[in-house]
């Protein structure tokens, strides 16, 4: 299955000592992702203006802001999905575990194997439920214990009980909310370090949304979750940290969610949160 690319990137090469320290540091809320003066341009248009922030390990970080403020762009910088857009150019650094993911020796394909992504609209492949979850494993050449891994991912995504007897059915026959949980299962089946979610509940009804929100809170026990949302109540409910982007791709405020929502430092953030614009 893995034809041409080596599955490791520079950051995954750790000696056992380093891994040990990494684990102890993580429990103290070390930051896994850090952006330094990150700017993104689509052609002549600037989508992000030197954004610097540190995202902590195993917590939910929400990115909120009005449409076109660059929050999705920032998210897509983390796993280099912007590489797929020809016209995008990126300045600055984005560090994953201290390694710049825009470094010359970084393979974006290997990077994306450590960073799962869930998109705005549920986008399961037109294959069976099983094949969807097994997709990431298969492209990485993992063929042993496939059934177990698929079951585990579906259980963690809280979908197993609903689909355990119909794994051969097409994923497109599921409801929208089930499809989105399937996409989450697909992303976590390969056991990534970070989970990026781009407005994962915006296309779903309230019941499906609340299921996804519960799931995100559970997932934060094992993964670093970064979620973009335009729904401020959602951000307030589920996130530990909140970053507020405002028009023009500027990071205006970043801090603990309680502080950002109850006592924002900037007047414009307060206006946005209280619904005066956006």
């Amino acid at each position, binding site marked *: *299955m*893995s*034809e*041409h*690319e080596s599955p490791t990137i520079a950051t995954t090469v750790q000696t056992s000592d380093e891994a040990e320290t990494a684990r102890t540091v993580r429990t103290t809320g070390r930051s896994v992702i850090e952006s330094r003066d990150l700017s993104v341009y689509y*052609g002549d248009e600037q989508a992000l203006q030197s954004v610097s922030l540190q995202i902590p390990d195993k917590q939910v970080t929400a990115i909120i802001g009005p449409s076109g403020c660059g929050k999705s762009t920032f998210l897509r910088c983390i*796993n280099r*999905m912007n590489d*797929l857009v*020809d*016209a995008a150019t990126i300045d600055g650094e984005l560090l994953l575990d201290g390694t710049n993911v825009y470094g010359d020796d970084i393979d974006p*394909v*290997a*990077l*994306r*194997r*450590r960073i*799962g*992504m869930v*998109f705005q*609209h549920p*986008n*399961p*492949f*037109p*294959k069976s439920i099983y094949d969807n979850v097994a*997709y*990431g494993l298969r*492209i*990485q050449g993992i063929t042993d214990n496939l059934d177990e891994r698929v079951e585990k991912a579906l259980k963690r995504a809280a979908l197993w009980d609903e689909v355990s007897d119909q794994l051969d059915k*097409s994923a497109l026959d599921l409801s929208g909310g089930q499809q989105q949980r399937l*996409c989450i299962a*697909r*992303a976590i089946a*390969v056991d990534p370090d970070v989970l990026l979610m781009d407005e994962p509940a915006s296309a779903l009804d309230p019941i499906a949304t609340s299921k996804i929100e519960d799931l995100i809170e559970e997932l934060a026990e094992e993964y670093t979750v970064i979620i973009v949302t335009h729904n401020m109540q959602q951000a307030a409910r589920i996130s530990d940290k909140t970053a507020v982007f405002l028009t023009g791709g500027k990071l205006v405020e970043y801090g603990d969610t309680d502080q950002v929502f109850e006592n924002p430092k900037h007047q414009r953030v307060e206006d946005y949160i209280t619904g005066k614009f956006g």
Partner: protein
Amino acid sequence: MATESEDVDQLRRATGTQLRRLKGQLFEATLLGATLTGIVSLLVLFGQIGFDAFRPLTASAQWYLLYFGTLVTPTAAFTWYARRNPAVRTANAKAFAVVFGALTVSLLTYVVADSVSPYDVLIFLLFGTIPPLLVGIYGRVTEERTYTGPAIPVATVVGLAVAALLYDVLRPLVGIAAQWIAYVGIVTLPVAGLLGVVVTRRWSPRRGVIAATGVLLSTLLVAGGLLGIGIDPSFWVVLFSAFVVPVGYVVGSTVLTESDGRTGVLGPFVLVGGVLVGATLERQLGIQGLESFLRPTLLLNSWDGLNASNAGVYPQIVGSVVVVGFMMILAFPVGISAAVYLEEYAPKSGWGGRLATLLEVNISNLAGVPSVVYGLLGLALFRNTLGFGTGIVVSASGTLGLLILPIVVVSAQEAIRAVPDSLREASYGMGASRWQTLRNVVFPESVPGILTGTILALARAIGETAPLVIIAVATTTYTPPRGLFESATALPLQIFAARSSAMPEFRHGVVPAAAVVLLVLMLVMNATAVVVRSRYERDD
């Protein structure tokens, strides 16, 4: 209350409503008129050709009554019955597909191999399939797929090249065997292998081996039996392996496993049986049937320019099939690869992007270039530059391939573009490489669309006349092409030539009959593609 009724009144009698509605109705009527004009003109045209080809007035009333009783009534009744039960309908469709699909494949295989020489086909088939098969099996066993994947096409090409180099040595060696043994190699072995794989996947490897061996042994038994009574078994080996075996497998497994729909497999047999019973009774009772030129001799005989009732288009049919078949091999891989490159790999911005756009615009324009111009291109390229002989299969296939290449590229591009970007993003987001995304997501999704484009391209190529005239393909040959570098003709050319015959029975009898044959040939090719396409869609 007063205001409310006023509002309602306003709704009913708003100014200009009547006029607007009239305008709308007129517009709808115009559209309907345009649609009907097109359909009626086509019906008249085909009606005229059909009338000349079938000559429906020559048959007696008894003939119509006979076939109404043996063919139309049972088929209609069965169709009506099958439509009411989805399981029966599915089984019916499956049975029809396998009966007519297998019949087409076995006849085409035999006809082509017979004209080219079964020994040649066997040599190239063996050398073209065994090396890649071995590489694939090696990859399976060792799980070393990094190199075996790309090595499979290389092995195919190398195998074919080796076969071409060693041809002079191999040909006499293979030629020792009787012809029917070559057909066993061409048809029976692949069918046995395929059936073995299918049965293995569905049940177990043990049964797969039994099935494959069974096919081989029963074919040999049939051949032996025919040899015993002094008949050359070549044709029957092909018919048995490529028609009886697949039909038996599909019909048998449907009857055994699908208890709800098992009666559906009778569909094609009702149809064929009706024709056979009708034909037998027609002969036995001496009923006056259709006196048309559309009869077996037309399909089996060579051309006879003097005697219309003896004229046949067998070499022309084989020529068309060989030319178009080789054209597919030449043009489809190139066209689909170009489409994949332009859609998935070509840069979208900068100078590279501009170049790609320029290329795409030009390809779209090429799709509309008159076919005569492609004929001139083919003449310049194949005859004058490469020095190929006049009117040979490769030149004809190459010219037609150039002609349909833009159509293939454009339609394949559209099919690939129709795959939603969200699926590509999902795949890339999982850490898939471009090739993995292409193979696992983009390609399976776009295959039905690509096949639709190739159907259009095929339909265009099989009817093309002008470019073949320009590259000096013979209008009449009396034998089918013996190889790729031999002269061949195509059915439309023969129709074109016969049209200017001095004898009216050619102009009004053989020509429309041959035109119907051409249409049927086109329909068979299209139907094959449609079946393949619908299969892919169902698998998703």
